[in-house]
């Protein structure tokens, strides 16, 4: 897939490889109070993507907001198999990164987290096929 897609270099927050369809969030989300880790469903009724599901997607959002518990919700969703397979951010977000780091430490499950430039970020559409590998992001529309 990467051979035929656009390839961009990002900044690695959490290393690893993952591929899946993009779910692009139009606004930042607090994962705690925003995602039900039992199902992966977005439950924040204020959020434009409420009702969407993060299971198996590459989650694309500018950054996280809200709760300190978002790290645990991400780690729990990764453990339970209800989480995303990768995360693409527009800005560094330690609370998001820590959820993926601890899931890796505890369960040896890699969910890569990368930060990409504003132009690249803005060009990703929900449904695009994304592949994250060694700090590169491949996008195939």
């Amino acid at each position, binding site marked *: 897939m990467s051979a035929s897609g656009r390839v961009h270099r990002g900044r690695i927050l959490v290393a690893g490889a993952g591929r899946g369809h993009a779910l692009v969030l139009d606004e930042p989300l607090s994962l705690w109070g925003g995602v039900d880790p039992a199902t992966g469903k977005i439950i924040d009724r204020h959020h434009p993507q409420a009702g969407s599901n993060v299971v198996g997607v590459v989650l694309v959002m500018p950054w996280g907001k809200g709760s300190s518990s978002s790290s645990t919700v991400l780690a729990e969703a990764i453990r339970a198999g209800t989480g995303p397979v990768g995360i693409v951010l527009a800005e560094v977000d*330690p*609370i998001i990164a820590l959820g993926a780091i601890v899931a890796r430490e*505890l369960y040896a499950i890699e969910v890569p987290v990368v930060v990409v430039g504003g132009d690249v970020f803005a060009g990703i559409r929900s449904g695009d096929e994304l592949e994250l590998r060694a700090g590169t992001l491949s996008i195939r529309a």
Partner: protein
Amino acid sequence: MTVDLTSTDRAILAGRAGEAAQIAMRVIVELAEISGAHRLIDITSAHIDGCLYHGRAGLDWAERLVAAGGRVAVPATLNVSSLDLLHPELFRGNPSTAAAARKLMDCYTSMGCRPTWTCAPYQLPERPGFGEQIAWAESNAIVFANSVLGARTERYGDFVDICAALTGRVPEVGLHTDAGRRAKVLFRLESLPPELLSSDFFFPVLGHLVGGRSERRVPVIAGLDHPVSEDRLKALGAAAASAGAVGMFHVVGTTPEAPTLEAALTDTGPEEIVDVTRVEVARARDSLSTTATGKLTAVSLGTPHYSVTEFAALVPLLNGVTVHSDVEFYVSTGRDVLAEIEARGWAEHCRRAGVQIVTDTCTYITPILRNHPAVVMTNSAKWAYYAPGNLGVEVILGSLDECIRSAVAGEVWRDERLWQSS
């Protein structure tokens, strides 16, 4: 490695302070690399959010640290948990969840954290002072510590909170630094009427509006002439930290790093100026309600945990009041505040009116509400923001007065005078 570690940091990383501190230091150093910090700094205290149960992962993490001999290196307070240990009968969830939640709480106390069980550690007597470097988790506590106390903490989350406590070290970035604390977005309130600015109800609504518009930037609010009380700042900050990624705000003339507007702003001035209108404030209020009228099943106050001064305002309003038999009325608070209001006879006064006091936890993070489907009125923008998603309830954001009158009537009562254009 880009982070310049001291010999002590390196010794901890090599395991010479034990395995738990080693694990914790690895995380702190990884966080420093992610955040672009050049060095670590000492902290004087930590507030730990990881004690609230969200599933197996949080417990696996805590148990691993306990098994590795974890012991906090600085004083650490504990956030709310999923259980009210003083009123255990209120928990209506699964017993196996309660057992796991209890185990998680025990893990953190066994590492030396204080069983304070409150989301408002700034209401405890020994709170941090101006300029102290700390590591707090819990979004509302973070914003209060930075904004109101002038202590310095980044927006820490679960996992990192205990790592900071086990090592006493954090990366020197963001809100720990002078530059990271200056405001980039200015909110001006000059066009709002004085009766709105002097109402308690204005502050959580303003916080919701400010949080949504600030994104990740530090905001400064100008146009509040009189010093704003801690309870109002608490409501503002909790709302802003739910609606946005806000870790600090300034209020000119009130908060300690904003004696003047110029002192709070970055040297280059604001990136954005927002002149808040009455229409926007009313819209922010309305966006926090999912319904407007009808039969009420519950009222919830105390998110963040109710303070002694908030009880002082509530208690006289309950004189001669009886909560409707179809309505559950909760006030969430810390066990330290409960001890204080028990001593003053206020807790009994609340109970006689039909008010249930909840400690150690909160009504929107754990199953406590009895009546379903639920229509709940609250004066907390944070409760109103999260509860519909967490609990599947309908919510109405109201003033304290609206909450009490509605609780007595058993149906929603609104006072629209504050919100109508003059």
